[in-house]
Structure formats: structure tokens, C-alpha cells
């Protein structure tokens, strides 16, 4: 499908897809990484705020502890003195704005019910006795806990019965008086916790964040939900929600652990948005301070960041599309021009102008190569035209030569209609390129037949012309009388006389006496013919001395005689028959020829020649014919 698109579109699409994938990857990574980073930073900030706030609370508590310890030092070791105690308490409360009240409760078992208490009433310090009329102050945690545990404690914060809407916590210190039991009295300092709520509400914790403080048993001492104060504990909220995790967090908090955890919100009693809780203990009192902040605060920043990132990404991809598209166009435009030029070229217009190649890029190279190819093509076509013309010239020359060759041999059979004393057939099967074979036969008189077969060296027109010359000489010298050896000698002299081209002709000449059957023969270096007698026995004409014509003027030619009985046949041939080759280069051979002649001996002359032709064709079996195949068969049928 992609391949159906144009290159420009494909490039654009792929680049955009690639770029989009990279941008998505970057965006996702950034989102996650930035999320972690923001989370870490926010966590660090929250932790810092948490610690700073815890420290501030602790500082106030420490100062209260110091005041109460100071008070204890003033009383410790002395006998009980109610008047002095009242004075000390009044002065301590009056001088320390952190304190809203202070008391010294004496052990009722040792001293009876006596517990002077100084407290702020508006701007005034007032004194009362918590043990007046035998009131049982020892039932309060502030007395009971240090009394039983013999150590200083911070009581669980409580609503002050006297003051309206004031949460108070008490630091209570046991001490021993002179001559008294181990815990003779408990000295206390009360501190209002209303400032805690103000402090926590003043913290900058974003829009949804808030801080809260729980006591030793998980009760909310400070919390933005005022209803929760002193009523609910982190555990009651957990139980109401069925939230075991919150209970586990609560336990960590009251056990003085510091932590940071995902949190389901605490505002009201139903889980709200997902948020985090950071908490740390306030060691002095065993309380725990928690800061809750919503996940959305981080998410908000992150969403804004990623929105900007996406916008930049989209703009970037859009710009990229444009750039890639334009770049792709600069590549494909010359390609399109080249394409158009090619079309014109394909239609045959090699002179059509090619687009100009600009620069040195691949397309320019392609255009250059294309131009070179076109030039080569033009040159090649020109050369082709020239060679074709040359070939045509050669072929016409060969045609002429062939025409000459074929026009010089008698081709009408039977050649002598009406003559009953002889049968004669001949064939000249020229090779593709004109060879120099020819045959001839003519009656010298009524009783003498001259037969000639020759092979001219060389090919083409010169060979044809030589052949024509040789034939004319044979015809004219034979008619002058004289035997075939004489004729051969004369022809030889003529041909050798002005044989500049050093061409030569092998020839077999025979003159048959049709009355007697005696055949006088001469050979100029030619293949010796076969004689087939009436019984089918094949014999070769004996060897006769004589070299090819045209080589040496002084050459000597012998003459031989062959006596044919009626029915005997003489078979003349050129080396195109005996040396016909098959594909593997094996020649047909004279022996094979003799066998074929023996097999076909019963046929007439045309039949003999056809049989030999067929045998040669079978032997060649598709191999190209390399030489002219020429045969003449003459059968003597007896004198009249």
C-alpha cells in the first residue's frame, strides 16, 4: 500500500511517523520523569514544611516544659507551703504568655486535698483550689499519670471545661517534697492548643493541602474539620471507612515514625481525591504532625507542562511535514522531468532535450548518466546503420556471386532428352557463403561426353569469376580436341598465367566414349570419383597424377582410362561431400560415401545423388554446411 504512494508522500508519511514516534516517546518520558521530579521536589518541600512546623510546635512545648521544670525546682525538696505555692503559680502564669494555667497538686493521701491553680481569666491571673471541699482532683490524668508512672507526661489534650472552645494540653511533672512520698506532688502547666490550628492553617500547602495533628492515641488535636477535633481519631475514621491501611498509617504515626505515603484524603469521612500524607512525630509530646496534599496539585503542573509539550510537538511535526514535503519535491520534480523526457525518448525522439541537471546530487548524476546513455544509444544506432549497409553490400555481392555460380552450371535434367545411352544427374548445393564449386557436362560430338567437376579455392565473387573463367577454358579447350589431360594442362597454363591472387582450382575431367564406354580421365588435385558397376560394387578411380590448376604453369597431368560397361556409373564429387562435418567435427568420409553409393547403386543417377544428399544431411544433423556440396552422377547405358 505504501508503495502505491508517491515518493514525496511516502517520505513525508514515514518522516512524520518517525518524528511522531520520537516525540511521543520524549513526551511520555518527560511526563514520567518530570512527574517524578516534581514529586520529589514537592515531597522535599512538604518534608521541609513538616519538619519546620514540627520544630515550631516542639519549641513552644519545650518552653512550657522548661517553665514547669523551673516551677518544680522552686518547690521541690521543701515542705508543702500553700501560700508560697499560690504566689509562685500566680507569678509563673502571669509572666509566661505561653501558659494559660499552672497548678501544684499535692498527694491527697499524704497532705489531703490541696491543689492551688493559677489560670488566665481574660487578662487577669486568678487562683483557685482544685481540691476545695475535698474535690477529687487525683482522678484526672494530669495527676494520675505522673503519680503512677513517676515521670513527667503530656496529657491527652482535652476541652477545657471552663474556657469556651479551647483545646488544652497539660504538661505534668511529679516531684518529691521534703519528707514526703516519692511522688509528693504534681506540678503542671497548661497550654492552649488553639494556636496550633492557626499555625497549621497558615501553612502554604496549595489549594487542597492541609495539615493535622494527632495525639498519642490518634485523636485529632488540630484539623481543618473542626468537628473532628477531640471527637474523632485517625482510627475511628479508619473504622468508619473500613480502611485498614489508614489504621496502619495511624499506628505508624502514634509510634513516632516518620513517613510518606499515598493517602485517601481525610477531609470528612468519605474518601475524596487521591493524595499523599507526610508525617513526622513531635517527640516531646508523642504527638504526630501530618500534611496531606492532593495528587492533583502535582498533576496540574504536569498536565500544563505536557500540554505545552504537545503543542510544540504538533507545531514541530507540522513544520517537519512542510520541510520534508518541499525537500521531497526538489528530488521528485527533476525525476518527473526526466520521466517525461524518457517517454519522449521511448517514442523514438532521441534528439528531445533532457532536463538540465542542477547541482551534484544523485538526481543530477542520474540525469547525466541518462544523457550519456542517450548519446551512446545515438552513436550505437549510427554504427548499426553503417554495419547494416556494409552487410547488405556484402550480401548482395554474395548473391551476385551465387547467381554467377548457379548460372554457370547446367541445371536442366535430363540434360540430353532423347538419348537412351546415358543417364546423368548433378547437384550443386551452395554453402551459405558462396563457394567455388562447379560442374559441367557437354557433348563434344554425338559419341563423346565431357564431364567436369571442380572446386575453386576462395569464396565470393573472385572465386565465382575464376570459376567462370575455368569453365570457359574447359569448354573451349575440350572442343579443340585432345584428351582430358591435355585440356587440364591448357587450362592450367591459362589460369596460372595471370594468377595474382594465387587462387587455384582442383578439377576432375572426364571424356566418355558413349560407343565403347571408355572414359578418359584427368585429375588436377581433385577427389577421385567412384565407379559403381551394375552389380553394385563400388571402386574408386585409381590415382592420376596432376596438381591443382593455376599453381604452376609447368604442371604435368597424366591421363587414365576407365572402362564402363553398360549400367556402370561414374560418381564425381567435391570435398564438400566427403568432408561434410557433423556437430562434433567428424567428417563424412570417403568410406562412408562408398557404402552409401553401394547401397544406392541400383537407383538411377538422380536417386543416387538424393541418397547421398540425404546421408550427408543425416550425418551433418543440423551442423551448418561449411562448403558447397557438388555431385555429378553419370551412368553408361551402352552403345546404340
Amino acid at each position, binding site marked *: 500500500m505504501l508503495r502505491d504512494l508517491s515518493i514525496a508522500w511516502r517520505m513525508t508519511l514515514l518522516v512524520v511517523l518517525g518524528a511522531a514516534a520520537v516525540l511521543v516517546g520524549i513526551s511520555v518520558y518527560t511526563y514520567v520523569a518530570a512527574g517524578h521530579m516534581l514529586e520529589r521536589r514537592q515531597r522535599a518541600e512538604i518534608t521541609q514544611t513538616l519538619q519546620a512546623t514540627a520544630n515550631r510546635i516542639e519549641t513552644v512545648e519545650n518552653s512550657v516544659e522548661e517553665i514547669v521544670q523551673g516551677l518544680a525546682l522552686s518547690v521541690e525538696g521543701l515542705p508543702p507551703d500553700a501560700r508560697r505555692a499560690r504566689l509562685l503559680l500566680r507569678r509563673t502564669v502571669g509572666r509566661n504568655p505561653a501558659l494559660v494555667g499552672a497548678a501544684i497538686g499535692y498527694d491527697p493521701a499524704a497532705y489531703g486535698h490541696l491543689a492551688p491553680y493559677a489560670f488566665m481569666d481574660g487578662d487577669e491571673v486568678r487562683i483557685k483550689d482544685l481540691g476545695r471541699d475535698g474535690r*477529687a482532683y*487525683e*482522678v*484526672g*490524668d494530669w495527676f*494520675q*499519670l505522673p503519680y*503512677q*508512672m513517676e515521670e513527667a*507526661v503530656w*496529657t*491527652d489534650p*482535652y*476541652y477545657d*471545661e471552663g474556657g469556651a472552645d479551647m483545646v488544652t494540653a497539660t504538661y505534668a511533672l511529679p516531684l518529691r517534697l521534703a519528707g514526703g512520698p516519692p511522688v509528693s506532688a504534681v506540678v503542671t502547666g497548661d497550654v492552649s492548643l488553639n494556636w496550633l490550628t492557626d499555625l497549621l492553617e497558615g501553612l502554604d500547602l496549595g489549594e487542597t493541602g492541609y495539615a493535622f495533628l494527632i495525639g*498519642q*492515641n*490518634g*485523636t485529632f488535636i488540630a484539623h481543618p474539620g473542626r468537628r473532628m477535633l*477531640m*471527637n*474523632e*481519631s*485517625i*482510627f*475511628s475514621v479508619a*473504622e*468508619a471507612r473500613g480502611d485498614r491501611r489508614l*489504621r496502619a498509617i*495511624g*499506628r505508624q504515626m*502514634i509510634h513516632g515514625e516518620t513517613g510518606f505515603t499515598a493517602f485517601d484524603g481525610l477531609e470528612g469521612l468519605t474518601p475524596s481525591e487521591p493524595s499523599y500524607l507526610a508525617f513526622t512525630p513531635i517527640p516531646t509530646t508523642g504527638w504526630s504532625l501530618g500534611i496531606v496534599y492532593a495528587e492533583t496539585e502535582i498533576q496540574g503542573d504536569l498536565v500544563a507542562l505536557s500540554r505545552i509539550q504537545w503543542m510544540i510537538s504538533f507545531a514541530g511535526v507540522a513544520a517537519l511535514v512542510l520541510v520534508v514535503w518541499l525537500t521531497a519535491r526538489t528530488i521528485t520534480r527533476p525525476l518527473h522531468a526526466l520521466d517525461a523526457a524518457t517517454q519522449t525518448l521511448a517514442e523514438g525522439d532521441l534528439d528531445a532535450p533532457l532536463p538540465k541537471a542542477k547541482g551534484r546530487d544523485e538526481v543530477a548524476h542520474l540525469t547525466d548518466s541518462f544523457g550519456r546513455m542517450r548519446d551512446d544509444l545515438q552513436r550505437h544506432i549510427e554504427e548499426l546503420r553503417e554495419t547494416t549497409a556494409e552487410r547488405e553490400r556484402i550480401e548482395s555481392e554474395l548473391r551476385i556471386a551465387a547467381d554467377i555460380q548457379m548460372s554457370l552450371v547446367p541445371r536442366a535434367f535430363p540434360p540430353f532428352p532423347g538419348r537412351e545411352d546415358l543417364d546423368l544427374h548433378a547437384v550443386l548445393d551452395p554453402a551459405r557463403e558462396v563457394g567455388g564449386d562447379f560442374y559441367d557436362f557437354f557433348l563434344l560430338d554425338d559419341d563423346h561426353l565431357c564431364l567436369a567437376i571442380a572446386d575453386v579455392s576462395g569464396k565470393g565473387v573472385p572465386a565465382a569469376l575464376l570459376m567462370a573463367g575455368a569453365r570457359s577454358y574447359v569448354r573451349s579447350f575440350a572442343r579443340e580436341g585432345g584428351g582430358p589431360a591435355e585440356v587440364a594442362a591448357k587450362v592450367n597454363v591459362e589460369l596460372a598465367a595471370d594468377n595474382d591472387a594465387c587462387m587455384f582450382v582442383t578439377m576432375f575431367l572426364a571424356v566418355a566414349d558413349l560407343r565403347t564406354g571408355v572414359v578418359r580421365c584427368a585429375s588436377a588435385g581433385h577427389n577421385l570419383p567412384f565407379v559403381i558397376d551394375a552389380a553394385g560394387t563400388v571402386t574408386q578411380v585409381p590415382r592420376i597424377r596432376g596438381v591443382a590448376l593455376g599453381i604452376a604453369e609447368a604442371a604435368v597431368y597424366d591421363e587414365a582410362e576407365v572402362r564402363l560397361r553398360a549400367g556402370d556409373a561414374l560418381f564425381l564429387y567435391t570435398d564438400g561431400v566427403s568432408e561434410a562435418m557433423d556437430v562434433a567435427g567428424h567428417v563424412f568420409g570417403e568410406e562412408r560415401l562408398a557404402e552409401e553409393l553401394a547401397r544406392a547403386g541400383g537407383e538411377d543417377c538422380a536417386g543416387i545423388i538424393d541418397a547421398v544428399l540425404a546421408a550427408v544431411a543425416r550425418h551433418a544433423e543440423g551442423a551448418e554446411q561449411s562448403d558447397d556440396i557438388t555431385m555429378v552422377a553419370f551412368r553408361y547405358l551402352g552403345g546404340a
Partner: protein
Amino acid sequence: MRRVLPALLAIVVCALAGLSLGAWPGAHPAAGDAGATPVRLILQWEPQAQFAGYYLAAEKGIYREHGLDVEVVAGGPAIDPLASLRDGKADFATSFLTGALEAYGEGAPIVNVCQVVNRSNLLLVAHRDVVKDRDDLDGSRVSLWGTSFRSAYLDFFDAAGVEPELLPQYYTVSLFLRGGADACAAMEYNEYHTIIESGVDRRELTTISLRKAGFDFPEDGVYALASTQRERPGLCRRFAAATMEGWRYCRDHPDEALDIVLRETRGAHVPTNRVHQRWMLEHILASIFPGDGDGDAWRPGRLARDDYERTRASMTGEGQLADAPEYDVLVAPEARDAP
């Protein structure tokens, strides 16, 4: 048909009118404001679900339906309900049976007119890392409430053969939570849950139910002066009946009961929360009305002779009381389980 329809309509209208008249508290012949007897009830302690039935009976007009105009007065550390009864500051007061026996012994001529809580809720709760079982209690620091709450625990220690070091326990379990005591007394419906709600897990506690250990003493009952019961038996009967009806209403409408209890706690500045009050209501109701598994362990509102005798024996046996009244003396006829 035409004649039947108007007749049917008339019947329906009359029925509806009758219903609404009957349901309207003000329309009750014996419950008009003018006719209702003003009565004051003092509770043992500050408002909480332990007293839901009394608050609901008043709030839902159940007392009024019984011809009573009841003022419910919350108790507290400074109030002794039975003393208030003796002093004529109240007509009725609630008290543990043990507390009533103690008060009687101190000369308060009181009589039980209705036994509300028939099953003990007393627990002994210990830090498991210190006290694994009852034997570990020997020599451990155990905090207990004052006199009238003690006898069951002391009986239990005797039976278990342990001698803990006893510390006083007052209104909080802070001493126990801070490790100042190894074990403490706890009501199953109150302090036990407070401890759980303070972040202590159940598996960190060893919890002993005194009821299951065989020291099952009836708890909250309604008391009046014997003279009141003698002179105005109808008033006591009506008050007892209305009170139990109030508790039945709580059982059937726990959420509404919690709403009203929480309104009372807030009004009295008692720090608490709904979860805790729900726990308390569920457990106190299970001690008032026998559940499916309790069979006919007790009759709601009545004090069984056996239960009384067991409690009496414990109180006198531990030497807290020299003597205690007979069943028929302390328990008014209408509160007796059997004739």
C-alpha cells in the same frame, strides 16, 4: 357500586382519622401536657449510647405516651445518681446492680423497678507482651475502677489464684495505654473499643471476659426510692414499660438512635464519635435483649433471682458489704423474673 363507594370512602377516612388521632402523642387521653406526670431521671454518666433507650423514649414521646413528662439528667464525675435519689433530687436513677447494693448498704432505701442490662460487659484488658494469660496477671499492675465495679474482678483474681498490684482507675485508660498499667478494667461496649480506637490492635491485647469467666453480674437497672414504688406503683410500672419500649425503638432504629445520642454528646461537650457510639449501642443492645444465641437467658427488663443472688454473694463475700438485702426487698415485684 355507586352506593358502595361512598360508604368505603367514609370508612377509610374514619380509619385514617382514628389512626392519626391514636398516633398523635398529644391526643392520647392520658398523655396531655396537663395530665402528664413530671418525672426526673438521673443517669450514671455523661450522655452516650449506654443510655440511648432513655433518650429515645423521651425524644420519641414514648414516656409521654405513658403519661410521663420525663426530664433526663446526665450524670458525670461530680454526680452520684443514687444519692440524688435519696435526696429527692430525682424520681428515678440508673445504676449497676453492684452500685445499688453498695448504696443500699450505705442506707439508701432504693428498689429496682427495671433491670435493663442483664449481662455483664466487664473485661480485663492487658498488654499481650506482658500478660499472655490469666496467670501472668500475678504481680502485674492492674488498674481497676472503684468499689462497686471491683467485686467481679476480685472474685475473678481469687478464682484464678493471682494477686495483681491494684492501681486506681478513673475516667480514662491513659495509664494503661501509656504502659503505666499492664492491664485495666474495661467495659466491652466502651473502654475496650476506646483502646482499639487508640491504635492498639486486638492481637496486641489479652482480653478476658468476666462474664465468660463465670462472673456475670447484671449491670444497668432503674431504681426508685422504695417509698415511691410503694406509693405510686403505677408510675414505676409505666416508667419501666416506657423505658423498655424506648430500648426496643433503639434496637429497631439504630441510626436514628445514634443521631439523637450524638446530639446529646455534643450538647454536653463529650468528646466522642459515631463509630464509637455505634459500637456501644450494638453491644449494650446485645446485653439488654437476648440474641439468637442466648436462648431465653433472661427476660428483658426483669432481674432474675439467680443473677441477683450471685451478685449479692460476690459483694458480701469480698467483704465490701457487711450485708445485702434479699431479692424480694431490693427488686420490686414488676422487675422480678418469677413470682
